[in-house]
């Protein structure tokens, strides 16, 4: 059993919705990222998505773009991100999903990444610009090392395609709540619930909903029809606003 499957089984058993926070690794610096991961786990995160900074994040809105820029200005690399996971995994059990664009992973090498991910305690990888049609070698490499590859589905995804993606996906299915980039929104579109229904018809895997989920109320709304909610930009924006304070982590905790 994978840790991600265990997590969703436990959520189902206790009839709870899952909460999946996202932060960008190295924003504002790697030490703070390690502290934040430990605090997020202590605060009850069920899974954590850890963003690998990239120079050209086309799927991201301004908040996560700026977080990537801050991390890259500090020179943060994929190796640093993996070291960061390795360090915190001595203290926390919560599954960690690397959230990345393809090019930095391609440069690192898929087999080397699969090995390093296994060694450092990464549970799964989500690659925003890798669709299953181009993903064959990555699926194989990760499968061989027991790393799960998370695929996205979107409101524009047809039912036929949902079925094909479901066959290749592992861990959970990430349902994009709307056509658009990441970022806070005022409401959850109706598309999201119908997408989750369509995905349920295609797959038995748990379904997490992300993109634009920014308030506690929205998280609860998502839990009514999906297994977990992902919140990114709303958290990253708080990190941004507190980044210059030495007590960022403590104040972040107090706010939540």
């Amino acid at each position: 059993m994978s840790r991600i499957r265990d997590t969703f089984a436990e959520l189902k058993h206790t009839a709870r919705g899952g909460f999946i926070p996202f932060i960008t690794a190295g924003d504002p610096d790697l030490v703070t990222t390690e502290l934040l991961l430990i605090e997020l786990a202590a605060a009850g995160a069920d899974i954590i998505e850890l963003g690998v900074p990239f120079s050209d994040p086309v799927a991201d809105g301004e908040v996560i773009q700026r977080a990537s820029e801050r991390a890259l200005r500090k020179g943060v690399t994929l190796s640093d991100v993996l070291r960061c996971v390795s360090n915190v995994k001595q203290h926390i059990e919560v599954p960690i999903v690397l959230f990345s664009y393809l090019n930095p992973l391609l440069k690192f090498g898929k087999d080397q990444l699969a090995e390093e991910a296994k060694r450092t305690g990464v549970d799964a990888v989500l690659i925003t610009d890798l669709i299953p049609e181009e993903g064959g070698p990555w699926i194989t490499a990760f499968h061989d090392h027991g790393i799960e590859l998370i695929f996205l589905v979107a409101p524009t995804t047809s039912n036929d395609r949902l079925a094909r993606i479901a066959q290749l996906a592992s861990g959970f299915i990430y349902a994009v709540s709307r056509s658009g980039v990441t970022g806070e929104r005022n409401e959850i579109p109706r598309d999201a619930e119908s997408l989750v229904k369509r995905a349920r018809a295609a797959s038995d895997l748990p379904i997490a909903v992300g993109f634009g989920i920014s308030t506690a109320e929205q998280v609860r709304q998502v839990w009514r029809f999906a297994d977990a909610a992902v919140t990114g930009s709303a958290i990253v924006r708080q990190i941004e606003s507190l980044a210059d304070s030495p007590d960022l982590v403590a104040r972040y905790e107090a706010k939540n």
Partner: protein
Amino acid sequence: MQKSPITRSEPDEHGHWGEFGGRYVPETLVAPLDELTNEFMRARQDPNFWGECNQLLRDYCGRPTPLFHARRLTAHAGGAQIYLKREDLLHTGAHKINNAVGQALLARRMGKRRVIAETGAGQHGVATATVCALFGLHCVVYMGAEDVRRQALNVFRMRLLGAEVITVNAGTRTLKDAINEALRDWVTNVDDTYYLLGSALGPHPYPLMVRQFQSVIGREAREEILSVTGKLPRALIACVGGGSNAIGLFHPFIADEQVRLIGVEAGGRGDSLGEHAARFHSGTASGGGQVGVLQGTMSYVLQDTNGQIATTHSISAGLDYSAIGPEHAFLHNSGRAEYIRASDAEALEGFRLCARLEGIIPALETSHAIMPAIRVAHELSRDEVIIINLSGRGDKDVQLVAGLQPQ
């Protein structure tokens, strides 16, 4: 009448030329890209589509463009006869209009009322704004802040044509960032928006589709040179940013093995990463041009050792881009085409030389091809022929070059 030529460089059904090309996009864009591919494949086989397209290219854009015998450049080079394919004479002043007309017709077929585009030098933005005015479509053009500064005249032209120009302040503030912003717009507004991409880049079907609309350049040039000289040229020379003017000229000659295909990349002002836009330059310890994925396609990409996309430099905004179209990557690796570099200084030399010797002021992008072409001509005999793709005119660059004088 255009036909769809099947050659060795036809991609597979998912848009792969060997390991290059394909689709590396967020899931949301797969359905609109499928819809676009299907519509393009239908249009490609539809005589009515080509009838309308060819009529517009003739009556609105001014095709066919002449193939001009550049006698004074030829004398200067002291070798092969140099011919210029005069894409600079087209409406809006560059080859970009060929693709803009074709894709605007597709947008209309698909019932999309809103068109978005990216632009570097502004030539593609102007071409898109122009066809949107012609078809009554709402037009939004994304342009990096650095390019807005160095191509102010084209920004004014686009606004005059009714387009909304959005300045992009992210990243390096050039073409790459304009494409990122256009992709973010498209992923947000997929239902009513057509993304009119301007070069042979991006996810399938764009590289194939842009090549199709630009290969009119090479088809005409091939007929013209055969009719004037009775033989094929020894070499074709074109500048390569994303690579649409080059692939448009090269493609109809790919099966003619005796014709050298030479692409000229921007050598900028130095060899180190960030100082040039030469994607086939494998570079230094800090990184260089390597196989990677940028903006939807697998190709050669200028990047650092951690896979972050590198900044680029070129005196010409249209060549100032970190990746090259995937078919060029394929032609490079297969050895069918050669890729060389011309520096900023060489481009300026070509710019001035072409103006003084032929009375033609080429775009700074195009100017990169002039000095390398003179060297190629010099090594050939007088009874041989080469063709330069004079892809655009240089009015837009006059102010920038004036600011550099005297050197």
